[in-house]
């Protein structure tokens, strides 16, 4: 009697559960999983609205996106973005988090100011910075000339190297708050007694940082690193607004957009976007595994 009743209750729970997650199943199934599978299948066909039919072409699309010189250059550009953005965000973010962890007066407001860039539309950020980088009337040229560091107006995006650095900087300006918050949460979970004990043992501030702080925030650091990397791999808005489709600063996601929606080579775009997904997932996995191993051995 008792077991029967509990089993009946379980099925009723089961039915209610399924009913409540039905919207999740419908939306994610229809708008994410189905397109994902469709993408996987159609990347082996030629899907181009301007050409009749869609014949099976095997791995031709994948060969195209791994040999085409423009696409390869875009991969290279994205690699540069990832390195620059991760370095700026992690370095700057760690310093900002350590600072915020020490500050007691007005921390709430400082944190609000720090978080703000992350909250703004990336497109507007790029426009704001684009005005600062303006060759004729921008703040950057103005300040550099006022301090006598340079003379004459620099057209910053004429130089590929400078363009890459500036786009990474704007991207890092937006994404650094996420690193700061993740690291600040990790810092606040470290027991104060550890530092007091280290101080009694005569450790310097730098020793405390290296022996206590960094190992203990390693998991947070890994999350921050993987977030920074994945967002930088998907960098689109900043490069698009600041320098358009220019091949100098064209990231792999811009290349995908151009292949798919401007050249209307949909299946090439799908192959490319799947490779981007694999890259993102692989990077996340590497960080997670490394941290998992390191924290296990300690």
């Amino acid at each position, binding site marked *: 009697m008792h077991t029967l009743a509990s089993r009946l209750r379980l099925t009723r729970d089961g039915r209610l559960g399924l009913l409540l997650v039905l919207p999740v199943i419908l939306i*994610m199934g229809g708008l994410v999983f189905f397109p994902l599978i469709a993408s996987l299948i159609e990347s082996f066909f030629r899907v181009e609205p301007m050409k009749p039919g869609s014949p099976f072409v095997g791995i031709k699309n994948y060969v195209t996106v791994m040999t085409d010189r423009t696409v390869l250059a875009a991969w290279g550009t994205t690699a540069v973005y990832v390195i620059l953005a991760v370095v700026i965000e992690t370095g700057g973010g760690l310093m900002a988090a350590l600072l915020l962890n020490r500050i007691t007066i007005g921390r709430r407001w400082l944190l609000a100011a720090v978080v703000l860039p992350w909250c703004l*539309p*990336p497109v507007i950020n790029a426009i*704001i910075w684009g005005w600062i980088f303006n060759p004729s009337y921008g703040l950057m040229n103005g300040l550099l000339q006022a301090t006598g560091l340079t003379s004459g107006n620099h057209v910053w995006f004429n130089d590929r190297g400078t363009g890459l650095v500036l786009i990474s900087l704007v991207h890092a300006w937006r994404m650094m708050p996420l690193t700061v918050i993740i690291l600040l949460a990790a810092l606040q979970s470290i027991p104060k007694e550890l530092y007091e004990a280290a101080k009694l043992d005569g450790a310097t501030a730098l020793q405390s940082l290296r022996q206590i702080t960094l190992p203990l925030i390693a998991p947070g650091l890994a999350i921050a690193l993987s977030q920074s990397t994945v967002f930088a*791999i998907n960098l689109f808005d900043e490069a698009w607004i600041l320098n358009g489709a220019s091949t100098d600063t064209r990231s792999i996601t811009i290349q995908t957009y151009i292949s798919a929606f401007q050249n209307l080579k949909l299946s090439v775009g799908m192959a490319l976007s*799947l490779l981007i997904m694999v890259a993102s997932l692989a990077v996340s996995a590497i960080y997670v595994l490394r941290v998992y191993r390191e924290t296990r051995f300690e």
Partner: protein
Amino acid sequence: MTPRATKRLATNAALTLGAALLLIWSLGPIYWSLVASLTPPNALISDNLHLWPVTPTWEHYAKLFGATSTSQGNQVQSVWPQFRAALLNSIITSLAATIVTVAIAAVGAWAFVRLKFPGRDALFIAVVATLAVPGFTVLIPLYRLMIAAGLIDTYTGVTLIYVSAFLPLALWLMRSVYQAMPLSLEEAAWIDGASKFYTLLRIVLPLAGPGLVACAILTFLSAWGQFMIPLVFSPSLATKPLTVLIPEFVTRNYVDYGLMNAAGIIAIVPPIILVLFLNRFLVQGLMAGASK
């Protein structure tokens, strides 16, 4: 002064300097854009660098919101009809996406935590795994799907895509909220004979208030700032949001920097209001969302 006091003074000075630098880095560019939006056009293109608007003007804002408009002395077509349409589109799609996402996540995440049903864990893992999938990957087949369904350039289409993009994070957040909630409250209600669904509505959801707010803020900000999705799915002013319209001001033969900065400032007002008043929820939400 004792060496100890000197050291403390030095530490405080360093901390203050660091805080000042952090403030300039975070707010400086926004301040500079605000200055540009209040500077008259001829002063914008002068050689003298002023760090504040010397002769502040509402001119650029008047151009955005005015029925008629002049540019370089000539009567030109007003941008207000476009700007109004895009502003409304941004508000409608972002609010709709927020409401739908939070509603689905609030109920769904509770089911994932409190109810046992077949395939529960596999479904949850699959949905959360899509957080690592770039939105891009599904954009192209989704484009064809939306054309076939006649949902390109409709509020329904854009909202649905937003929901599918922001639901995984919302579910993840709400699940951590429910997991932190003591089961005993719900059990007490069940023992009193309340149904599980009734318990969710009358006891669990009111307690989950802060989590729901965090979830709503994150979803709204993501939708408000979206660029790539509307770039593909909102070709006309029927649904085109501010993020797509404002960059188009550049592509005209004459770039109106004052107008662009004024439009940008308008577009960042809602996020700034959210950060000013609801920052606590936002930071909590981000921290919970990040601790994967």
